[in-house]
């Protein structure tokens, strides 16, 4: 209990006094023992005296130390504590001692001085705050009044703004603030009206553009449809033309082949005619030789006829002579008769042969004439065959040229075929693009038609309706796929790097 009091409640001075009191009591006890020991038989007198002197010195030292502690430790601490209590009590103008000391008292004094200065500053600030607070309170009253008025104006303004924005959000771009606002809000009114004007102007232009685009896209769709039909007709015609040209090509090729064959045949005929002419000449020569031989045979027959005549005469004479001879010449007469008969028969035969030879000669002459005529005819035939051969060569050459021309025509048809195909592909792209454009335009028109800009709503509706009616005029045009696929490919394929076959 006493220790707790000493630790928590006793002042420093009391604590020092108690500590030094204990030391002093201990020294007195030691002195008492030393004095008593003087009278004890076992201790020497010198030792006892020394002990007493030591104890006295110890007491003096303790006392001096006590005084020193009181003056250097306790007194500064007590004075600083007192100053602190005064400062805590609000007496901030009280001096704080030991300010120039470098020990704990000095440090404590300087800290306390700083604390006091801060308190002084806080007090000043607090007072200024109080003054400001009072001034603010006065201003607050004025502001409250002004604020009430301002809030009233603001509420009115916000109401107007809400109304204007509602009109705008409902798509009415014709709304304008006609009544002037308070001066501080007038700029807002001006800006709002200018913005609405600009919106209306822009949407008006968009509306006009939508109408133009709608009309243009419908016309593109119509043109594309027309182009598709023309391309189909062109493809049809090209197909028929290609078929006809193919037929003509076949005919020309046959003609060329026939001309070639005829030319070969004419060449053969010409050669055969030449050979026949030679044969005719040989036949004429042979005929003349036969004629010569016939003449020689006739001459020989004349000799034979003369011999037969002479033989007949001799036989007649021999018969006469045999008759003269009588029976002896009877056999000779028979022989002579026989010889005469043979001579007559020989003469008759020679005559017949002569007639035959004469007939043969006439026939040979006739034959020679005929063969000569045949040779002449063959010469003419050969000349004609030559002419025919030249004509056939000309026909063959013409057929070849025709074939080459047809090859060029076929190439041109192929090129036209490719062009037609390109046109068809372009038509597909154009048709899809125009339908897509029509759909986008319709969406844009619907979006723009949500705004009211004078009578522009009616114009948009009319444009949209016109687009629909134009679109209905060409029902054969492909519809836009339901999946919303949009063609984006360029019309021109020439620059595409994807030409050709791509294997997945």
């Amino acid at each position, binding site marked *: 209990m006493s220790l707790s009091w000493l630790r928590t409640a006793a002042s420093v001075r009391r604590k020092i006094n108690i500590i030094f009191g204990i030391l002093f009591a201990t020294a007195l006890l030691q002195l008492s023992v030393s004095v008593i020991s003087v009278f004890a038989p076992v201790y020497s007198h010198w030792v006892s005296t020394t002990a007493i002197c030591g104890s006295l010195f110890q007491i003096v030292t303790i006392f001096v130390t006590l005084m020193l502690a009181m003056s250097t430790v306790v007194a500064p601490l007590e004075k600083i504590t007192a100053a602190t209590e005064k400062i805590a009590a609000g007496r901030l103008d009280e001096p704080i001692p030991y300010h120039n000391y470098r020990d704990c008292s000095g440090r404590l004094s300087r800290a306390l001085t700083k604390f006091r200065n801060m308190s002084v500053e806080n007090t000043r600030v607090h007072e200024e705050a109080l003054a400001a607070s009072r001034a603010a309170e006065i201003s607050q009253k004025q502001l409250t009044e002004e604020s009430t008025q301002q809030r009233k104006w603001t509420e009115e303004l916000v109401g107007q703004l809400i109304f204007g924005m509602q009109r705008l959000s409902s798509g009415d771009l014709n709304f304008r603030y006609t009544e002037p606002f308070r001066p501080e809000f007038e700029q807002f009114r001006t800006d709002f009206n200018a913005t609405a004007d600009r919106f209306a102007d822009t949407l008006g232009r968009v509306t006009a553009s939508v109408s133009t685009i709608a009309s243009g896209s419908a016309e593109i769709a119509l043109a594309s449809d027309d182009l*598709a039909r023309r*391309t*189909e007709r*062109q*493809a*049809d015609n090209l*197909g028929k033309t*290609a078929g006809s040209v193919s037929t003509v090509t076949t005919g020309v090729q046959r003609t060329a082949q026939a001309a070639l064959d005829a030319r070969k045949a004419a060449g053969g005929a010409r050669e055969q005619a030449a050979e026949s002419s030679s044969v005719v000449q040989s036949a004429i020569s042979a005929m003349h030789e036969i004629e010569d031989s016939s003449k020689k045979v006739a001459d020989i027959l004349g000799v034979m006829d003369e011999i037969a005549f002479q033989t007949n005469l001799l036989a007649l004479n021999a018969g006469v002579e045999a008759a003269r001879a009588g029976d002896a010449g009877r056999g000779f007469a028979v022989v002579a008769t026989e010889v005469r008969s043979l001579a007559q028969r020989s003469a008759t035969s020679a005559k017949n042969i002569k007639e035959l030879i004469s007939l043969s000669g006439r026939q040979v002459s006739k034959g020679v004439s005929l063969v000569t005529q045949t040779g002449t005819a063959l010469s003419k035939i050969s000349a004609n065959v030559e002419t025919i051969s030249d004509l056939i060569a000309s026909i063959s050459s013409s057929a070849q040229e025709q074939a080459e021309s047809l090859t060029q025509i076929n190439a041109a048809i192929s090129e036209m*075929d*490719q062009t*037609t*195909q*390109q*046109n*068809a*592909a*372009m*038509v*597909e*792209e154009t048709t*899809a693009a125009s339908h897509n454009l029509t759909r986008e335009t319709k969406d844009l028109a619907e979006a723009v038609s949500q705004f009211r800009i004078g009578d522009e709503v009616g114009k948009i509706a009319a444009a949209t309706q016109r687009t629909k009616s134009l679109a209905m005029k060409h029902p054969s045009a*492909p*519809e836009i*796929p339901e*999946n919303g*696929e949009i*063609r*984006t*490919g360029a019309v021109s*394929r020439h620059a*595409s790097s*994807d*030409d*050709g*076959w*791509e*294997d*997945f």
Partner: protein
Amino acid sequence: MEKTILIVDDSRTMRDMLRRTLEGAAYLVVDAVDGQDGLEKLEAMNPAPDAIITDINMPRMDGYGFIEGARGKDRGRHIPVLVLTTETSAEKKTRAKNAGATGWIVKPFEASVLLSALKRVIGS
């Protein structure tokens, strides 16, 4: 035996040109005017075609729908399908490939390229 090709295209011009090109190369040709018609023709053909050439942008049913419909049928599951279109975007090619297309040819086509592609997918 002659091979049969099913053409699906809404353009009569393209159908005629394809027919001329293919018949010139000794193929038999059956054509359809859109994807829906193509599926009906595919169902009705006996035997099934050896290959299909289809456009992409068509009314009623487009090429993607047709390819997916054909791939959904037993007889159309393994038939080569060449896409013949004016489209060139990679996104549409990918879509066609995912739908089951075998190849992609850009219009206007070269006859030699088309025939070479056909030969490649169905053999000579």
